[in-house]
């Protein structure tokens, strides 16, 4: 019985993952991730970690993904352009690398003969994954990480507010399209680009290319 549930949940998880990685529309990707998370919660249940499974559903799928949905709605889910900058070779190389890493990990996990892993696991104690056990651990042995995590949450909340707040005057008119932020130093201020000279030729420094389509970026080497 457990095996059946395992396979269902496992395939669900993998399908959700593939969906996140391949779907063009970010909204649909979010939905795929939600399904993946629910499958993962099922897997957690199979592993007798009830509290974690509940936390996954409530916190992850319930709060974090909702946040994601809000942002995607705000930003607007435009489809990604198909052709990447680096060319089709880049995409192929990425997939190859991912597969390679997967192979390595599988070899590590399975090929070693599973000597380090006790297949059956430890004998099951009652209250293994229950909230009581988790709570006791959190407040006794892992008190410090618990407090640090709460501090981290505070920082993240403040950081998010700071990053996304509306700053006065920097946005200009509604119909301006700033192509590139002029983050380079003005001429003669000693930026590395200047010091290097012709090795990395860049466009005109300090020119807000208002309305320009390609600007000076076409001359840049992409690095890849």
């Amino acid at each position, binding site marked *: 019985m457990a095996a059946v549930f395992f396979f269902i949940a496992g395939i669900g998880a993998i399908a959700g993952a593939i969906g996140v990685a391949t779907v063009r529309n970010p909204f649909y990707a979010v939905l795929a991730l939600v399904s993946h998370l629910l499958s993962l919660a099922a897997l957690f249940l199979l592993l007798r970690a009830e509290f974690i499974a509940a936390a996954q559903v409530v916190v992850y799928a319930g709060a974090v993904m909702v946040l994601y949905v809000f942002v995607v709605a705000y930003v607007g889910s435009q489809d990604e352009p198909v052709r990447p*900058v*680096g060319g089709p070779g*880049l995409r192929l*190389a*990425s997939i190859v*690398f*991912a597969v*390679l*890493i997967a192979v*390595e*990990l599988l*070899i*590590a996990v399975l090929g*070693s003969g599973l000597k380090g892993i006790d297949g059956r696991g430890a004998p099951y104690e009652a209250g293994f994954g229950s909230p009581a056990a988790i709570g006791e651990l959190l407040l006794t042995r892992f008190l410090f990480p618990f407090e640090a995590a709460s501090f981290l949450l505070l920082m993240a909340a403040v950081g998010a507010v700071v990053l996304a707040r509306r700053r006065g005057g920097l946005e200009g008119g509604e119909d301006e399209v700033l192509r590139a932020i002029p983050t380079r130093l003005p001429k003669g201020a000693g930026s590395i680009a200047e010091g*290097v000279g012709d*090795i*990395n030729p860049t466009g005109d420094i300090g020119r807000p290319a208002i309305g320009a389509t390609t600007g000076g970026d076409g001359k840049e*080497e*992409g*690095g*890849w």
Partner: protein
Amino acid sequence: MSPTTAAWLALACPLAGTVVNALGFKVIKGKLPGVIGTVALAAAFLFALIALFSLQGRGGEHRQLVSSLYDYAVTGTVDAKLSILVDPLSILMMLVVTGVSTLIHLYSFAYMSGDRGYTRFFAYLNFFVFSMLLLVLAGNFFLLIVGWAFVGAASYLLISFWYRRTTATSAGIKAFVINVVGDIGLTLGAFFILKNSHTLDFLGTFSQAKELGADHHGDLTAGLILLLVGAFAKSAQLPFHTWLPDAMEGPTPVSALIHAATMVTAGVYLIARMHPLFEQSVAAADVGTIIGAVTLFVAATIGMVVTDLKRVIAYSTMSQIGYMIMGVSSGAYVAGLFHLMTHAFFKALLFMSAGSLISAMGSNQNLNDMRGFRKAMPFTFGCFVIGGLALAGVPPFSGFFSKDEILLFQAETGGWHWVLYVVGYITALMTAVYTWRMIFRAFWGEPVEQAVELEHGHLWHAPQPTNPANGEVEDTDVGFPGPEHHIAEWALPMKIAMGTLAVLATVGGVVLIPKTTTWLDTFLEPVFKDSTVQPAGSDGLLWFGLALGAALGVLGIFIAYTIWGKANGEVATRLRERVPALHRFFANKWYFDELVDFVVVRPFGWFGRFGQQTFERIFVNGTLIGGPSTLVRAGSAAVRAVQSGFLRAYAALLLVGAGAVILYFLIQSS
């Protein structure tokens, strides 16, 4: 007061004068700087006299005193102390220097007034006298070199005194560069001697003279010849003489003081001071003698054809110093120093008179433009005559006795010195000729307009101040000569100074009249009594020489009169047309300047250009510095490509790295 204390005070006076004038130039106005300078020098002369009497008051054996003020650096092999040596030789030099300097300061008090740089002039002049006193009083090589260098610097400052004239500044640079070459010779020579004597002190070195001569003859000769290089550069002997005629760009009191009476005699003093060492090395002494002889001849030939009044006197200085160098190199120390003293008198007198004449001509120094000043400037004419008679060597003027002493010594030495004897007397004839050429040209004949104006009591002024050397128009502000011209007839300080020198030039020979007075001989005896060069005296040669000297002097005056004195100098023109090539050769100063330019200046210029364009630009800048920097730049450009700003590239690198690490551990554990 002990002689050394008096000597230190005599050193301090001109130094104080310099400092007061230099630091207080904004406060001290009018003619006060002149007063300060002259009084400082007069005080120095007073102290020199006190030192003289104090020294003579001691016994004969105690006449060489060393006084050290401060130990600058005393180690095992080098003892550099601020010590002076007071003995009859240095007292004689001190007296000559301070005495003549006081008179020249008095002269400049009137002559330089009206010049915007009046204070600066007296500051420099006092500094020069301080340096010269330091040089002659030095008790070790250390202070000698310091004084030598200071004197060169003072000479540069004073030659280019009118610094907005390019001719003056070029002349100053030329003098300084040649002097520095001499400084190198002096320092290296001192080192060669120090190497074996292990002491910088004079008396210490001289006491080891015999050992140095016996054991380290090569080093000693090399050192002495290098010292001679220094002496020749300072005293304007061949081949380092080219700076002296150009140094006439400085004001006339400067020419009188530095380039006649004092600085150029430093070489003579040096050889006389180092005489124990020179006597150990015959080769070095012979070098000095021969160069002195050649110089006196060459300078006299050039003096006969130059047309600039001050340059005639300059070449005459060169020639007379040649006599002195020849004398002290061959061993005639007292005679050489005697000639130094008398020469200071009549040469300074001649320069002062020349200054007065040039003032009357409105700063024009060209002999071709001067004629007939006899009636207009009687006092100046009289001084010229006295100086000219002394220089020509007519008895009983001082120059007669001193010059013949030197030549007599050559005759007494015998051997190849007879050639020098003959050359010396031929040059004596030429000396008389060129001196009186100058006097007859300037004072005989039809008076020129400047003389006529002066006869009517009115000093002639040029419509526009110009540089006499190249005719460039200038103004009379600072850096150029002032608007006023002063002649001796109208300026009392000038008259007093020139008069004193005229009297000294007339009676100065009394200190060493042969067979009658031996004051100078006895005075200098404690210094030179250890001299090993004492040829047998010969009365016959003495009288012959005296008679010949007198006769040649008078003959020279007569020849000069014939060529230039009568008929407005037509004979001179005809004579020049008969030997044009020879005249051109002499007028171009035996082409020495061209030779120096070819041998020294051009190779150095080529070397410098090569160094800059080829070595510096291509090799150092291009390869040595450009190479590594280009390499680093290329390397960093390559490394920079990794930071492309491309997020996905970073992610990929990260994951590839992680994969590689996992692979490594996989392989490790299997």
